[in-house]
């Protein structure tokens, strides 16, 4: 597939013109022979959204999975992404924090395909590039995930990471339908890290000091005091319990109306969401709350009007207002304090109203969350798009011309009020033994307004012109030709505008509604690269053949429907993380102090050397698929794919001599191969009063670095290279136990990370050179990206009652605890010790110890990535579980409603895993939420 894809833009256009003219003249020939009947195209009810259009599922030759709005609505989520766990085979969704307004999950389609800058799929809402979270879950008609080159080639230079198409609801002809959805619930953290109490802390701390050959800090009397003493002198504060509540309310209300007549259709909706955070005592201040809170108001108005019999106009408007309240201090700082602040140093309050604290620990979490003021983040989305379509059928049969424009605006700004607070240290009076409260540390100040900051005004404007032509030749041949010109400009704050330009075309061929073929091309460019490297040509071909279908197969046949499809093509990714890298650049350097004071003088320094050859990533994608229906009740879809990502930016610094002295640019030389299999099974059956369904989604995807610049290592250490391993594979030292004794240390290879003692981690000398250093780092296990992902959805109904459950599992993943030092590495800067630490090494338990010797100091030998810290991160989560009741039609008739349903729904109720200590997907920081909701849906 190594064709030179650099065709000048104009030649490409001329070529397209030629094809268009050719097709048109063919159509004129055909027209003469055709009859009126021919123009009726068979439209199955089962339409699938594809790039720039919808086609019957049967005709799709690319790899596309579509979810309907109904699948999405059954989730109580605040970001659309959180409704997609396990729903689409090959769409990997990783849950993050549960913080209101900051809970967007991570995404990728078909696993990891690049180590380059952009890894997330392109998201389009109603055909325009937009944020997935800018749409309410209630406004969604369907979501399609386009996975192979044939499906995505129309998006050419931006398509390599896959594409997600979101279509919002529209109105249909008929009586006005008014729908009200309401749900209300409470949420609590799934799992939070746990820490030892003061008495255990003191025991472990003494043990650690003795390991460090330092005198003990806590006497037996102290330990007894912490066990059951005066909590003023011997505090024992579980900060997480003190500051985190278990019942934060969530509310969601959505009202929509839709309907239409022959001239116009409409869908309008208004939604409200409230998501409350889990901090405690946030209402102690007069007039304001410091709790995290998201208030969202969103609307949508989708209207299509038949202006003339052959001219339709479609206007979609959508908007969202998010007001987020949060404690003044950064979320990560708050959680670090909750994890780090010792239990034994001071009580929450030294005296009623006076917060406890010491000079070194002056950020008493109670004050840190509630007495530092609050932040308000305001962000607003506004989206509009207009589509004008002219049916030129009366001039040329099957010809449609159209123009579309989209204009979006996003604005965000933060402001708020801040203050500081004082803490008081309690000490024991040496004579009376009574607690004495010392002078204030810090000061209580009044709220001061923080002028707006972090503001960004982002805009995106897109214009498109298109031509669509459908023609049937005789009884067997149909072609559909679409040509489209796209121009997009995005303005992000003060950055230079992002511009894109492309001409795209697609030719669809249908032979007797049995064999289908598609040729899709895009020629597009961005200003990111130098002239000559700016544009790329992205072609894809695909074909599908329906072997069996209902008409053909006898009812006794096991196979009712069988389609084979295959595709191949090349798409690109222009977001390589650096713009204008083709030009030489001088940038601001660090400041340096001259003169009599430490005032820095600003500097300029040579930036990265220009790389005029910089270009986009290319992804060569091949896909084979089978769609089938068997025993008249099971739908099956299977896909095998391979993606070869080339031109990934990779550094040169590992090979160029240091004496060059400059900073060399990355070059398009990296390569990754990714292969996988995806399976989707749907078994459903409807009986007279009941029914059930079971859907299994499964994907097994493995990537492998083919080419990447790497540090050159000496012979014998080749395991160091990442070439051949998955991108996110964890590399580290191989821990083979703890040093048993000084003699063991003396007889083992030297570990150069720092002096070692018995009880420290002992590593394997992979290259047998007698030294354990960074060159003994090699592959130790999977990273946090799973190889296998499963989604299982089950449901049944009996009469009006129904139950549905959605489970998601990720297998072959690990968590690297060395990345969360403040939880898993105790005491280092006087912080706590978590209950993860069990049976730390001592001389007595040296054979059975489960954790290295404790230390009160930094330990560069133990506290680094090694197989010891890599723990199994597999999990199965029950993402949603819903019990519902639909009122009988008799009841509905009486009330005049067309539908009425009540439900109880749990989100993230259960997690089954081996890690157990905290949520394997979100180990530290603002936790993931579990919620229980009750609600109803009424349709009038």
């Amino acid at each position: 597939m190594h064709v030179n894809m650099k065709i000048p833009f104009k030649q490409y256009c001329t070529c397209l013109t030629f094809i268009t003219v050719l097709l048109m003249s063919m159509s004129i020939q055909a027209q003469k022979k055709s009859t009126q009947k021919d123009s009726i195209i068979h439209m199955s009810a089962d339409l699938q959204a594809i790039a720039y259009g919808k086609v019957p599922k049967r005709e799709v030759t690319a790899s596309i999975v579509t979810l309907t709005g109904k699948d999405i609505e059954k989730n109580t989520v605040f970001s659309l992404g959180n409704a997609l766990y396990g729903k689409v085979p090959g769409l990997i969704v990783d849950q993050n924090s549960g913080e209101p307004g900051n809970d967007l999950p991570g995404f990728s389609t078909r696993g990891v395909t690049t180590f380059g800058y952009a890894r997330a799929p392109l998201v389009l809402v109603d055909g325009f590039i937009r944020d997935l979270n800018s749409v309410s879950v209630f406004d969604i008609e369907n979501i399609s995930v386009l996975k192979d080159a044939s499906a995505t080639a129309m998006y050419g230079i931006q398509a390599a990471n896959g594409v997600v198409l979101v279509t919002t609801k529209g109105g249909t002809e008929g009586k006005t339908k008014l729908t009200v959805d309401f749900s209300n619930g409470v949420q609590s953290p799934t799992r939070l890290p746990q820490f030892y109490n003061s008495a255990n802390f003191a025991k472990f701390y003494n043990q650690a000091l003795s390991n460090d050959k330092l005198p003990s800090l806590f006497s037996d009397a102290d330990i007894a005091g912490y066990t059951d003493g005066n909590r003023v002198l011997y505090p024992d504060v579980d900060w997480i319990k003190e500051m985190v509540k278990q019942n934060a309310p969530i509310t969601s209300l959505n009202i929509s109306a839709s309907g239409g007549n022959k001239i116009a259709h409409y869908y309008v909706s208004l939604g409200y969401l409230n998501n409350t955070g889990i901090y405690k005592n946030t209402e102690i201040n007069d007039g304001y709350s410091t709790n995290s809170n998201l208030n969202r108001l969103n609307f949508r108005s989708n209207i299509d009007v038949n202006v003339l019999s052959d001219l339709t106009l479609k206007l979609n408007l959508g908007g969202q207002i998010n007001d987020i309240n949060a404690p003044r201090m950064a979320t990560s700082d708050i959680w670090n304090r909750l994890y780090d602040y010792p239990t034994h140093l001071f009580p929450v309050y030294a005296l009623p109203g006076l917060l406890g604290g010491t000079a070194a620990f002056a950020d008493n979490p109670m004050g840190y969350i509630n007495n530092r003021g609050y932040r308000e983040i305001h962000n607003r989305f506004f989206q509009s798009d207009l589509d004008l379509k002219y049916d030129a059928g009366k001039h040329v049969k099957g010809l449609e011309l159209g123009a579309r424009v989209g204009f979006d605006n996003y604005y965000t700004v933060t402001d708020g009020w801040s203050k500081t607070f004082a803490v008081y240290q309690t000490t024991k009076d040496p004579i009376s033994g009574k607690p004495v409260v010392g002078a204030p540390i810090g000061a209580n100040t009044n709220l001061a307004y923080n002028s707006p900051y972090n503001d960004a005004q982002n805009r995106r404007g897109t214009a498109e012109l298109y031509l669509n032509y459908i023609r049937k030749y005789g009884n067997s041949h149909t072609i559909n030709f679409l040509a489209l010109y796209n121009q997009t400009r995005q303005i992000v704050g003060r950055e230079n505008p992002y511009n894109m330009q492309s001409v795209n075309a697609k030719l669809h061929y249908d032979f007797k509604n049995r064999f289908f073929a598609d040729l899709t091309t895009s020629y597009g460019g961005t200003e990111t690269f130098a002239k000559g490297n700016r544009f790329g040509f992205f072609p894809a071909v695909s074909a599908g053949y329906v072997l069996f279908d209902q008409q053909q197969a006898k009812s006794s046949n096991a196979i009712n429907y069988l389609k084979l499809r295959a595709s191949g093509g090349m798409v690109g990714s222009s977001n390589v993380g650096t713009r204008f890298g083709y030009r030489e650049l001088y940038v601001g350097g660090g400041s340096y102090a001259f003169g009599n004071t430490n005032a820095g003088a600003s500097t300029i320094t040579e930036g990265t050397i220009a790389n005029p050859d910089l270009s986009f990533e290319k992804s060569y994608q091949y896909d084979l698929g089978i769609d089938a229906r068997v025993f008249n009740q099971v739908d099956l879809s299977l896909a095998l794919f391979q993606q070869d990502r080339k031109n990934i930016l990779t550094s040169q610094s590992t090979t160029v001599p240091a004496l060059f002295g400059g900073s060399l640019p990355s070059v398009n030389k990296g390569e990754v191969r990714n292969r996988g299999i995806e399976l989707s099974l749907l078994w459903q059956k409807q009986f007279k009063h009941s029914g059930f369904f079971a859907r299994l989604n499964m994907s097994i995807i493995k990537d492998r670095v083919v080419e990447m610049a790497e540090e050159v290592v000496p012979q014998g250490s080749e395991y160091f290279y990442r070439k051949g391993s998955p991108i996110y594979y964890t590399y580290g030292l191989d821990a083979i136990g703890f040093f048993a004794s000084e003699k063991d240390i003396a007889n083992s290879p030297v570990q150069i990370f720092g002096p070692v003692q018995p009880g420290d981690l002992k590593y394997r000398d992979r290259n047998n050179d007698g030294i354990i250093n960074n060159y003994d780092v090699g592959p130790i296990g999977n990273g946090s990206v799973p190889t296998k992902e499963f989604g299982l959805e089950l449901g049944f109904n009996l009469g009006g009652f129904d139950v549905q459950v959605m489970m998601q599992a990720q297998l072959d993943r690990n968590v690297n605890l060395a990345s969360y030092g403040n939880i898993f590495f105790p005491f280092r800067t006087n912080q706590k010790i978590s209950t993860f630490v069990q049976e730390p090494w001592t001389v007595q338990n040296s054979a059975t110890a489960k954790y290295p010797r404790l230390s009160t100091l930094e330990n560069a030998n133990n506290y680094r990535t090694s197989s010891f810290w890599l723990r199994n991160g597999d999990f199965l989560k029950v993402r949603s579980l819903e019990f519902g009741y639909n009122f009988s039609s008799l009841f509905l008739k009486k009330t005049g409603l067309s539908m009425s349903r009540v439900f109880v729904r749990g989100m993230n109720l259960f997690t089954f895993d081996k890690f157990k200590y905290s949520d394997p997907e979100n180990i530290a920081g603002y936790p993931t939420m579990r919620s229980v909701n009750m609600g109803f849906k009424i349709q009038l």
Partner: protein
Amino acid sequence: MKLKIPFYIIIFLTSCMTGLNSCKKYLEMPAQTSFNTDSVFSKYQNAERLLFDLYQFQGRALATALNGKLGSSSVATITDEAICFTAQNGYTSNNVYAGSVNSTWFTVNGANGEDVYDNHWKTIRKALILKDNIDRVPDATADVKGRIKGECTAVIALEYFEMFKRYGGVPIVKKALNDAEDFVIPRASLDSVYNHIINLCDEAIANPYFPAKVPDEKEFGRLTKAFVYGLKSRTMLYAASPLFNSDKPYQDFGANNKLISFMKYDKNLWTLAAKSAREAIAYAEQNGYAIVKNFGVTRNYKVACEDVPKAGNTEVLYGTFQGINQSKLYWLGRGTNVGGYAATEPTQNHIEKYQNTDGTTVNWNSTITTPVNDPTAPYKKLDPRFHISVAYNGCLWVTTNPTYSLEIYDGVDASVANGRNGPISAKTQFAYFTRKWLNGFEASGVWTPMSPYMRLAEMYLNLAEAINEASGPTAEAFSAIDVIRTRSGMPTVSRTLDQAGLRKFIENERSIELYLENHRYFDVKRMMMGDVFKGPINDVRVIRQKNGAYTYTKYKYHDRAWFTHWYLHPFPYNEVNKGYGLIQNPGW
């Protein structure tokens, strides 16, 4: 009908083409807001900022106080001058003590190692580009441009010297490289690198626009001609010293011996070194530099080491405020009034180098018992430079109100309270804290003393040493040392010393005068005295007796590793592995 079809096609395609044409420049990048080579040299203002950038990595080359090397434990701690808290794993000096030094970290990572090999080359490239392009600046006079060229030359010379002393022969790069083919440059012989440095120094000295001293105090921290004279003296001293000036290398390197040794002993190098030290002193003193001696014998040394020229320091030839780690807590022993990390604390070995002001020494070989309630008795008469450099039991630590005295002792038994800064109370290990640069210590937080790289005092020491080696203990040699000693209230050197005695005396004097200024590590290596790094490294145990007297007992804290191949640094492992012919130093 036939006509209509082309009509629609034409409309669509015309609009497409119109779209493209009207937006012909759609994908052109808007005006550049950042600089390129042309725009950066179009204004003096920018060129000056490029010049300032040359100093970016110099901060790290400066005195130990702030350089954040070796996991913040500092270079002094891998000499017999000082020691770091040994339980603190992050202080990578501990690895040096244990002997686990290798090329994977020692010259790779600035925070953990002793050097960052790459940074020398980064600075050289910057200086070469600036030097080549400065003439393009339209709005600067020939004087200004000439000065910048001189400064660039001085920076390049300094970088080569810093590599020369660490690695021996290194590649010589004479222009800013752009072509991948030019990147393959082998190591030059030690001889060539030495000559290259001297040539660069001479070029800067010959530059008429390069000032002897910064014309404005605000420019303190920029290189001057007086510094280049000093650098030349230092380079020649290193070249004349036994490590390089020998007919055989410190360790056999076969065919590559010329990379690490001159391979012939040349006594004349000492004569040249003496001459260049003499010139450096003369040039500096003609141009307004002088040994600090107007602040009284107990304070002169402090002003010379810690203060800026504005505050009366006439002695510093190059120094800066720039610091990497500005937390003085690294320097404090643990458990003081504000805590401390005990990163760099003086050893007993270093304490024993100080003499009393009458020229005698304290006998530490048996336990010293002080009079009752007089903890500072052993230290009272020591060199004023000791009191400025070292904090010890009983000394007044915080001099401002409220004052704070150090109590670095343990009680003899449970009936005698442990001192608040002693091993038991403060969980500390050593009986001495660093005081140099912390004098008048008041509170924690950001702290930016002046950090000297070169002082005139060093030139006198260079002179004395070079003369002694070239022509024995002459009057000029003795009086050069007297200059340093008398300004700190110390007696003159005994004229009875022979050449070996004076050599030993000068080495001791350098260690005292240049304490913590990054000299000791390289001085010991160039003098081929590496075994002193082996130790034993001693500390003193201070016990308060029941009657209020204190006992001071010297004890061995530890021995340290030292290997012959450590005389020169290793090149970074991954640099050698790139396979372009960089030959690793022997033994690494």
